[in-house]
């Protein structure tokens, strides 16, 4: 089944992609790792990040976690709060 996942982008990931969120086409079922591959393909500049994590519904997620269109997905580049 084909669908779109909305991905929130912050900080450097927003600068590298030029967007504060993107809609990524996926084939369900899909996993965090699949989404990351797709994003790296669409935005090769993401490879320059020291780290790139994914949050699903506000929690850090592993690459094998399944995701769908109703999840809130965000890319987390290296944090620098404080």
């Amino acid at each position, binding site marked *: 089944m084909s669908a779109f996942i909305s991905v929130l982008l912050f900080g450097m990931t927003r600068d590298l992609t030029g967007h504060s969120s993107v809609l990524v086409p996926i084939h369900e079922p899909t996993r965090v790792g699949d989404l990351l591959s797709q994003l790296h393909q669409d935005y090769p500049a993401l490879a*320059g990040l*020291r780290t790139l994590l994914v949050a699903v519904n*506000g929690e850090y997620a592993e690459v094998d976690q399944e995701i769908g269109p109703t999840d809130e997905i965000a890319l987390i580049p290296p944090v620098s709060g404080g």
Partner: protein
Amino acid sequence: MIAITVDPIDVAAALKSIELEQAGAIDLFLGVVRNSTQARSVNRLEYEAYDRMAVSEMEKIANEAHQRWPILRYTIIHRKGTLQIGEIAILIGVATAHRGDAFVACRYIIDTIKQTVPIWKKEVFMDGEEWVNALFGLS
């Protein structure tokens, strides 16, 4: 209390929020915008947060600190938006019965925030700007 705010951080109000009769020690840590980084002159900082997740990650850190040390009260306030030199970016306050716990817990909280909480800082220089620590090969 944990908060992310665009307003200047009110130190007196934060202190008041963690005072109580059982407290013998309070450690307040302030992270402040300084005027240079690695000898490069900074004009201002811009902080961005994934608010929902930043608050929940700070809650996790506070809960972990609570389990490790006998914290009576605490507060964590992180500011976002544009900050000028000298402004407070983060305040962490910890009240305990004895001073050792206040220092150690406060230090743990700020160190862990810097590792896990989705907040990003952009340094704005005279001649450019840079998301701190984001890319390979940049300082």
